[in-house]
């Protein structure tokens, strides 16, 4: 492999891995010394001219982009995964561990009232379901987890959730020093 070909490979890798378009200066800084950056860029541009990915220069900086004529193959509604809020994650965990459980019981465990959307969101995501009604005054609805919940989290069954001792053993559950009482900050 010739020196130029080797440098072309490095240039490809650099442009591929970069999170932003790269200008000549930063490219030169990462390439072996004494390489002809103009020549290399031209080579790469030619190499990829008819490929599914092209080398383009935007605002004086270089990057790979998918070929514009393939745009309609790239289209698909993008469901960017959203982070589940802390409240929702915690609620989900409590339901998983304490099912069947009523809304009031969840609130008691969390120590705060549940905002309207939280249960809806978990129901919509298909992770929880209505289990039945508690035989107590008001006959409140109880919640539990679904099969999708098990599938999504790769659990064989609900019994596979680690118990408190196991959480402790795995280092997840840590005894909290008494100084923190009242600050509500249980982060280790």
């Amino acid at each position, binding site marked *: 492999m010739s020196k130029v070909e080797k440098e072309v490979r490095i240039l490809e890798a650099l442009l591929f*891995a970069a999170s932003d378009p790269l200008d000549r200066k930063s490219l030169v800084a990462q390439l072996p010394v004494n390489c002809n950056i103009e020549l290399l860029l031209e080579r790469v541009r030619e190499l990829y001219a008819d490929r599914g990915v092209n080398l383009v220069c935007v605002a004086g900086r270089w990057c790979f982009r998918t070929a514009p004529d393939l745009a309609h193959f790239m289209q698909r509604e993008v469901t960017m995964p959203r982070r589940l809020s802390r409240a929702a994650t915690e609620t989900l965990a*409590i339901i998983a561990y304490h099912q069947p459980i009523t809304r009031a019981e969840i609130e008691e465990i969390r120590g705060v009232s549940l905002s309207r959307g939280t249960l809806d969101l978990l129901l919509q995501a298909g992770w929880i379901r209505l289990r039945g009604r508690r035989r107590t005054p008001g006959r409140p609805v109880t919640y539990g987890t679904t099969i999708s919940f098990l599938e999504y989290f790769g659990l064989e069954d609900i019994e596979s959730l680690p118990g*408190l001792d196991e959480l402790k053993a795995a280092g*997840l*559950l840590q005894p909290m020093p008494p100084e*923190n009482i009242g600050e509500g900050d*249980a982060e280790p």
Partner: protein
Amino acid sequence: MVKNSSEDSDTLVASMPLVVDLDGYEGPLDALLALARRQQVDLTQISILELAEQYLAFIENARQLRLEIAADYLVMAAWLAYLKSRLLLPNSQCDEGPSGQEMAARLAFQIRRLGAMRNAAEQLMGFNLLGRDVFARGAPEGVNIIRSNVYDVSLYDVLRAYADNRTREEGSRLSIEPRALFSVDEALERLTSLVGRIPDWETLERFLPSGIRNDHEHRAALATTLAATLEMTRSGRLLLRQSAPFSPIHVRRAKRDSENGSDDG
């Protein structure tokens, strides 16, 4: 650390002084593995008897150097001493339990298995690791195809959330017991009902409620009762007297002309 390469010859091994550095090992099995690697390159051929002797010498050496030896190292030493005796004695007494050979085979297996896992870990770390040796696309154009999961949450997150909740819970479950202390209102009520029966000077102590269990409650009751007498004195229903600082306080009904002789019951 015991260097474990390039020492194939038994004589060389035998003549090598044992380097004692307990900190270099993660437990007795690790130390045994290191010793075994000195003994032979091929772990399938370890002599457990020889290994036992080396280990015992190693512990003895550490003892002479007055190094602190963790209990599990000593347990292993005791076990190996026992194993050694089992291996050396003719297998005449047919007691139950595994024979010396079986015990030795099992130990050899454990050492080989740990060695194998350690090699595997080294090999794995020598792979082309993502983010270290090979890199993913730095700026994916965001076409995230077929990602049916709308939420990005892992089981770890769920467990973490639960653990955090429990941790908070354990820490904050501070039940404050209702304190059975005598309130000023109660003292006022009590004194009001008693006031008619105090024609002459009595010590304040006598008007404390019954059922006081400790000094703490006693002092609290005394304070509230005093506060109540002050209030009643202010409104002219009682008289208070104290002859010197810290001396007992005395109480007496205030004689009011209008009530004179009428309210004694």
